């Protein structure tokens, strides 16, 4: 995993980003607002999952608590607009800072727990925050916060008719999170994180302060999650606790990253690019039938994916890469022909 400052893969990434940036200029693409919606969600959840990936993938601390930070960001923006009648921007910043602070406070004791105890503790934290926000009237309680109809534009981070601006905003978030993680990969701190993941004791013996590394990774991850949450509420124009601070939401981040390939830069994008369209299109196609056909299929596909390819989509890409470069037939003696 040696990463140079700039390499061939980065060139591919830049080309990909350029393509994404130009995509809305293609009329056939931009005209279909549902496709735009799916693209926005892919970018948002790729960014969000990448934020999770920092602590969950690179640092090896599987947290199911990220919807708390997502929610704090959402409430930051929501309260700035709804409660204080201003622009969301100060709320976004405050939300990010607050999320990082909360992350440090609640993670510090949790990091003493190992394995499943840690995972269940993060479950419990989500539930506490969810139910706490439901009864906390200052943040709207169970009623939630509903946006009034206010002027569109960058100042209010809100657009009414067109989705193109939302698309670019989501792309910006995507670039920020992926950029930070790409930078981390080549940076000293990134190596610390991976060292902690591979073995806390070993890392300590090499002079890495594992608690400090984990806390720093967690707060960075939480701040980015809050940024995504703020976008989510600006996009939906409403926030209440079950919408943002729920185990379902947390599971989504984990699912996307693991299915894509955790601890890899491309993983969250791959996961989101598969899972989000799957979720949206199955619902669009079968949701109206009632009876949850879309969710049955969605659940079945998750099972199939995990059972067939636990290493994630990145594993598929790698084996595909090997397949095309011809290495595989040499290694495996043409086993590929057997499968049909």
């Amino acid at each position, binding site marked *: 995993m040696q990463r140079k400052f700039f390499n061939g893969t980065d060139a591919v990434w830049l080309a990909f980003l350029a393509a994404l940036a130009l995509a809305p200029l293609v009329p056939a693409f931009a005209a279909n607002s549902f496709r735009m919606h799916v693209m926005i969600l892919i970018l948002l959840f790729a960014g969000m999952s990448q934020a999770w990936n920092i602590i969950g993938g690179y640092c090896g601390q599987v947290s199911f608590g990220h919807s708390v930070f997502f929610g704090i960001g959402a409430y930051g923006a929501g309260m700035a607009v709804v409660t204080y009648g201003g622009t969301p921007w100060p709320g976004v910043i405050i939300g990010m800072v607050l999320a990082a602070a909360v992350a440090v406070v609640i993670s510090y004791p949790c990091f*003493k727990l190992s394995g499943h105890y840690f995972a269940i503790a993060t479950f419990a934290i989500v539930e506490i925050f969810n139910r706490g926000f439901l*009864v906390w009237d200052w943040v709207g309680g169970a009623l939630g916060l509903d946006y009034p109809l206010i002027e569109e534009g960058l100042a209010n981070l809100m657009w009414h008719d067109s989705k193109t601006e939302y698309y670019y905003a989501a792309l910006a978030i995507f670039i920020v999170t992926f950029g930070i993680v790409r930078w981390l990969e080549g940076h000293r701190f990134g190596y610390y994180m991976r060292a902690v993941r591979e073995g806390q004791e070993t890392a300590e013996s090499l002079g890495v302060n594992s608690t400090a590394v984990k806390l720093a990774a967690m707060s960075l991850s939480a701040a980015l999650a809050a940024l995504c949450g703020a976008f989510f509420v600006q996009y939906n124009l409403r926030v209440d606790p079950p919408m943002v601070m729920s185990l379902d939401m947390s599971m989504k981040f984990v699912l996307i990253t693991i299915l894509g390939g*955790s601890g890899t830069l491309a993983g969250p994008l791959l996961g989101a690019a598969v899972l989000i369209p799957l979720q949206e299109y199955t619902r669009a196609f079968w949701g109206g039938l009632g009876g949850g056909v879309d969710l049955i299929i969605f659940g079945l596909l998750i099972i199939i994916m995990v059972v067939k390819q636990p290493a994630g989509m990145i594993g598929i890409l790698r084996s595909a890469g090997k397949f095309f470069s011809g290495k595989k037939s040499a290694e495996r003696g043409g086993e590929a022909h057997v499968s049909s």
Partner: protein
Amino acid sequence: METFLQVLIDGMLSGMVYALVAAGLCLIWGVMDVINFAHGEYLMIAMYVSYWLGFLANVDPVVSIVASGAFIFILGALTYKLIIHYTIGKPPLAALLATFGLAMLLKNLCLNRFSPNFLILSDTWLGDKTFQLGNLIFPAPQLAAAILSLVVVGLVYAVISSTRFGWAVQATAMDRDAAELMGINTERVYILIFGIGGACVGIAGGIMPSYLSVHPEVGSLFGLIAFICVAMGGFGSIPGAFLAGILVGVVESVAGFYIAPVFKYIAVFGLYLAVVFLRPKGIFGW
């Protein structure tokens, strides 16, 4: 004082039901290190089994527990054979995610087949009855579920701790490869453990239609509380899960009454955090 005792009794009774639900999860988790996310859905399906038996064939839930236990035993074994088997030795989250998918599948399959209506069995043997001790009230269905919980948890514990099969299970839990070398068919142990874990929750679900209505979402919160109980009790410790279940029930009831009902689950989850911050491996963990 009387009110306090009543609150305590309510808490103990619901706590023992939690313990019964958690025992199955604890077993699977302890032996295989797998978090079964579909555990609440097992409970829901067991409730449907018991409901339909009662509705179509007039079988009382007290009798149906045999059928629902057996049904979930098979379902559990199938889950292992078809899904979990493929995730053993893979990244640790694989099984969790697969069972998350399974939970989604089962929940919506039931929604699809049985409609989302809330189904209630009326006129069950236990349904309306209560026992009174002075001014204290013991509702019969919860009392029966609590006794059942004691029996089943005790039985499972006895089997695990003092039969040849139980020793095989313990050996497998400690080190699968070593157990395999000792001639234990660990694959069979895994299937049986998943089945027995399912049967526990199947029995719990079987009796519940006496007092709870059945619908596709009914298992979610039970599943979550079961996770809390198991982790609080300590990894794979059945007495721990049992104690934690009762503790959760009592805290829920006391906090719900003396603080405010909306805080009862906050108190339960807070209790878990408090316990693991003091004892990072749970009450009975080491």
